């Protein structure tokens, strides 16, 4: 993939879409070779690779009670701004994780990855639980990143999302990726 390119993967549940993203992130054992900007994954310690290509799961995990404890102090303002751009206000941002709605959790988990300013993003159903308005706000932020040269691979169940992001579309079936028919 080239800089600023987006790949949208669709396919039935259990086809292996999430596993594929997890393998690219090196979160599951795999035999593949991946490189980013000419740097081979195997040449980097795993955590540095993931910092360059963070993975955001469809079900977000949280390791502190308060939302803002998930961000470094120096990044709080930016995180809050990004959350605001995607329609998450200050009240949820300053509250407890278990008070968040599913959609807020998903967007705030995305913010955690976005503030890394990584050259690539691996997103598992980033807009899965979102209403159309919130989804288009998230897509606006993603388009902004693509314009800035970030590579994005995402799993999506919404067939219209790929075209909206100008993405190359592929379909996963039985653990094999193939170009989407008709694209």
């Amino acid at each position, binding site marked *: 993939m080239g800089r600023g390119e987006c790949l949208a993967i669709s396919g039935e549940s259990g086809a292996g879409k999430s596993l594929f993203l997890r393998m690219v*992130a*090196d*979160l*599951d*054992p795999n035999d593949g070779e991946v490189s980013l900007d000419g740097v081979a994954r195997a040449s980097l*310690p*795993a*955590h*540095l*690779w*993931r*910092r*360059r290509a*963070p*993975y*955001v*799961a469809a*079900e*977000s*995990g*949280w*390791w502190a009670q308060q939302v803002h404890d998930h961000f470094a102090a120096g990044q709080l303002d930016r995180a809050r701004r990004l959350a605001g751009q995607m329609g998450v206000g200050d009240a949820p941002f300053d509250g407890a994780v278990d008070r968040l709605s599913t959609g807020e959790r998903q967007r705030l*988990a995305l913010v*955690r*990855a976005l503030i*890394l300013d*990584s050259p690539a993003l*691996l997103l598992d159903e980033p807009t899965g639980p979102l209403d159309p308005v919130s989804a288009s706000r998230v897509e606006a932020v993603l388009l902004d990143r693509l314009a800035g040269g970030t590579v994005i691979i995402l799993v999506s169940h919404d067939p219209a999302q790929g075209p909206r992001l100008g993405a190359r579309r592929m379909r996963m079936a039985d653990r094999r990726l193939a170009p989407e028919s008709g694209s």
Partner: protein
Amino acid sequence: MISLTPTDLALAAVLVALDAGVSVTLRLQLHRQLLWAAGRMVVQLIAVGFILRFIFTLNNPLATLAIVVVMGAIAGREIAARPARKLRGAAGLAISGATVALATLVTAGLALTTAIRPHPWYDPRYAVSLVGIILGSVLNSGSLTLDGVVGGVWRERSAIEAQLGLGVEFRVATRPLLREAIRRGLLPIINQMSAAGLITLPGIMTGQIIAGMDPVEAVKYQILLMFLLAGASGVAALTIAELALRRLSDARQRLRVDRLT
């Protein structure tokens, strides 16, 4: 020292029968378990008494080593069996075995070569008794810590993976869990030390006093033992937490919950 006859023991056993009676009248359904446990205890202890008497008369370093290894192996098996989710394959046994070996060797070795120094140094009267007491503590702290690590990793797996996915190192993502598990493992010995003499009279001290030793001499022994137990608990908790976490990750810093049953 007052020697006990079988009749003395039978008289005391009336108390167990009393417990069983309470269980029957109150329908606690505990009497069968209670009697089984009491019977098991009697058989186990009599067998150990005769084995120890035999080992003591042998006074042979290899025989002492053999019984110490058997005791350690049983402790290792118990530790590995404790958590609700266990490490898959032989890893659980290997990890708890290594923990038992290290914690016991370090503390018993220290005591036998410095403070106690029996002649010969492998005198089973000291070595076997000391190892027995130490293993109790190692079992306690080792199993609590292992349960803390394994249970914690399972409970927190999505939180850990969320951090790994963002490029956080495995060590960093699991540090709170590691701390909590070691803390849990050290609580029993802290309780034991703070309660000693006030709430409980420790068994060793009581035993030695009954056997005719001066209370202050007995207390000195007990203090030494408590320090040894604190050391053994610490080594056991730290070792097993470290090894178990290592086993639950790999060279690419993944979280390997697939290595749990």
